[in-house]
């Protein structure tokens, strides 16, 4: 009988392991609710760069102010884990600052995992409601095809704020040395870049200067600016990033099959041929190498939403131009996003017992006061007023790794992201960090896009059709772009064939669905 015992123990042990293993998957922390004044929030884990949420100065302060106790659960690698988290038996009351795509909002909203909020917002979120009244495009961007709102926005009214606008950053030293002005249109851009690469502006006697040079994944930013110059920015940056624009007859069109795109690629191919775009534009340079090269003063032009992308060392040397105009007096416009920069900043789940309380809690940050509190903190503690302007206190300004990260040790809304906040204007933020606000070579607000469309909300049926076509078309366009720009394909010879391939993938169906969504959006 003894051996049986051994065998049985073995089996028992292994089944215990099984239970433990399967237990891991459905472990729930949301279930331990203490009292009715506690809410449970799930947020991404940033504890590697700032204090844990429960220890963050701002949240301790807000607990006193709101009287609501927050039980935080933070998650690393959110994108990989979010689906797993949804399969839990009990969900947290709400997801704070976590990314869900519009498709996911609709999908899980319809399946009853997320709660519809459109009826509660007017009553329990007066500040957000006010914003939505002032700017109807906010509500439009949040509303799903069946009229629900499942997520609260990260929003801001400054077209330059919160990383909304792409700019061209020129090497100021080189411009000065060659006695050149920052270009305003595509022709001048070509001239300036030619001077950059041929006249040895860094003065080392070697022809190591590059024109447009970024790491190899970043050809898109330049193309956005050029697209705007050729008239494809009529519906703003978000629309361009979703590959649509609106033509003169108010009809939605696919960007990459338009004749304007043909001009864009022709222009880019010209730059590439003349060596004004780095030969490594599509392969071979990673971000670290690029930043290192920027330190050697070989970067003439890059494009991004903020100059700090090129590294703290080199950033002071770059001056931003916000609008690139086309040839022959064609006007470009500011490449800026919809005021709704995130649609899922705060999502309330089916397991929230008291959604009103959650809404009230988060609504504060959509007020002017709450927005300031989320960014500046409290006067005398985290900021001081100097010459009528709010500047962080010295312990933040002198933080070893920079003022921005310093502020993040106290307050939450520092790095634009999926925050449920009203964003502060960009210039104020720069001043708060003790920096001079960026001085543009032109006037960004002079020419805004005619309208700024968000990413449309799709019905589940639309999104399942779109996702295949979009993935395939994007892939095909990516390959075609390389061939057109590097000159492997000739625009005139290969364009028709390129369009016919797009049609094969499903261009017409895509345009049909997107048009339908645009009509729905206008009616909303």
């Amino acid at each position, binding site marked *: 009988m003894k051996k049986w015992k051994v*065998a049985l123990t073995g089996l028992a042990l292994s089944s215990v392991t099984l239970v433990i293993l399967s237990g891991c998957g459905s472990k729930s922390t949301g279930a331990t609710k203490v009292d009715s004044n506690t809410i449970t929030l799930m947020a991404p884990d940033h504890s590697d760069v700032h204090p844990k949420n429960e220890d963050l100065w701002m949240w301790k302060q807000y607990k006193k102010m709101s009287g609501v106790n927050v039980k935080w659960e933070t998650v690393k690698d959110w994108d990989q884990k979010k689906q797993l988290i*949804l*399969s839990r038996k009990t969900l947290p009351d709400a997801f704070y600052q976590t990314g869900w795509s519009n498709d996911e909002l609709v999908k*899980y909203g319809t399946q009853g995992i997320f709660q519809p909020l459109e009826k509660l917002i007017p009553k329990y979120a007066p500040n957000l409601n006010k914003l939505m009244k002032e700017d109807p495009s906010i509500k439009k961007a949040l509303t799903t095809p069946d009229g629900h709102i499942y997520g609260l926005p990260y929003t801001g009214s400054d077209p330059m704020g919160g990383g909304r606008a792409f700019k061209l950053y020129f090497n100021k030293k080189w411009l000065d040395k060659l006695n050149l002005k920052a270009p305003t249109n595509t022709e001048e851009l070509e001239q300036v870049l030619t001077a950059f690469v041929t006249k040895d502006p860094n003065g080392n006697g070697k022809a190591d200067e590059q024109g447009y040079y970024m790491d*190899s994944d970043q050809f898109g930013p330049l193309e956005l600016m050029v697209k705007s110059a050729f008239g494809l920015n009529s519906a703003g940056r978000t629309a361009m990033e979703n590959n649509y624009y609106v033509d003169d007859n108010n009809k939605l069109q696919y960007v990459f099959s338009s004749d304007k795109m043909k001009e864009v690629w022709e222009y880019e191919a010209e730059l590439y041929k003349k060596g004004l775009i*780095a030969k490594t534009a*599509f392969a*071979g340079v990673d971000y670290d190498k690029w930043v290192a090269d920027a330190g050697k003063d070989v970067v003439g032009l890059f494009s991004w939403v903020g100059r700090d992308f090129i590294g703290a060392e080199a950033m002071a040397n770059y001056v931003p131009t916000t609008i690139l105009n086309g040839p022959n007096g064609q006007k470009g416009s500011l490449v800026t996003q919809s005021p709704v920069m995130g649609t899922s900043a705060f999502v309330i789940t089916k397991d929230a017992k008291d959604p009103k309380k959650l809404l009230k809690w988060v609504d504060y940050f959509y007020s002017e006061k709450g927005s300031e509190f989320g960014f500046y903190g409290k006067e005398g503690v985290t900021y001081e007023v100097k010459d009528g302007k709010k500047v962080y206190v010295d312990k933040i300004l002198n933080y070893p790794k920079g003022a921005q990260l310093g502020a993040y040790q106290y307050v939450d809304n520092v790095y634009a992201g999926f925050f449920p906040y009203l964003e502060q204007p960009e210039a104020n933020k720069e001043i708060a960090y003790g920096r001079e606000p960026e001085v543009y070579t032109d006037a960004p607000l002079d020419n805004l896009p005619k309208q700024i469309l968000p990413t449309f909300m799709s019905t589940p049926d639309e999104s399942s059709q779109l996702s295949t076509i979009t993935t395939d078309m994007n892939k095909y366009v990516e390959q075609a772009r*390389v061939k057109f720009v590097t000159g492997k394909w000739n625009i005139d010879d290969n364009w028709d064939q390129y369009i016919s391939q797009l049609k094969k*993938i499903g261009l017409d169906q895509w345009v049909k669905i997107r048009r339908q969504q645009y009509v729905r959006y206008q009616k909303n």
Partner: protein
Amino acid sequence: MPNTTEVKVEQSDKRKERAKRWHYVKRHKSLYLMILIPIIFVIIWNYWPMYGVIIAFKDYSPAYGIWGSPWVGFKHFTRFFQSYFFGNVIWNTLRISIYSLIVSVPLPIILALMFNEIRVKWLKSTIQTITYIPNFISVVIIVGMINFFFGSQNGVINNLVEMFGGKSIDFLGSSGIFPHMYVWSGIWQGVGWGTLIYTAAMSGIPQDQYEAAYLEGASRFQCIKNITIPAIMPTIVISAILATGGIMAVGFDKTFLMQNASNLSTSEVLSTYTYKMGLVNGEYSFSAAVGLFSNLINFIFLWVVNKFAQHVGDTSLW
């Protein structure tokens, strides 16, 4: 009419047999207990998760769970087969893996044969160790090294080319060169490690065979051809069969890291495509369907090659 005594004898024989078998099991109980551990391991980690494969035939949503999600039949498979890039992706996958198979099966054998002929012991073990080392470098670093050596701007190789007046070659961004880069960097990394199994097989060859051949006046090449290769033939066949079982499985990490917009037309393989279509968009059912499909192809290849090996020689997997 059956003979009753015979039946009885038969039954008692069976009983005896069973008792004997049980006795045998009892006698070797510790061995059986030992094998229980891997069996449980395989059940938990390899067979139990297979239950999840059914999401390939469902519209999986975490809200409903694996079992509760609605059945959709072959919807995801048809979507995959009808997708524009289906042919391109399958072709890229097959091209890389067949290319890699053709090179990576014989090369370790040749290298192992060369090792076997080195008579100076310390030299042999030093060289072997050196060839193993790349195997322990992580993929990310390998790709970093590839960029460092083959970059079109300041890459070591291109610097040399330019120094001798040549024109810089776009190794990383060329779709034509990608399969070579992928396969040969894999060879560089794995060839030493790949010799291990053959070295082990060679060490099992009795020395007297070589001595006898030597006395008969056989040359080294004759020894290799007539003694070493026949002796390791079963190992060669088995590892070749196993290699074909991974024909649709071009590694994700390295491909994904080496991929860029300009080599996409040859570097998009099944695994990276699945990642983009399925995981990035959160479509688990679709990914599961593609995964199941490629495993099916792998299994068919394995089966066919194994049958072929059975037919031609006498070594095979089962």
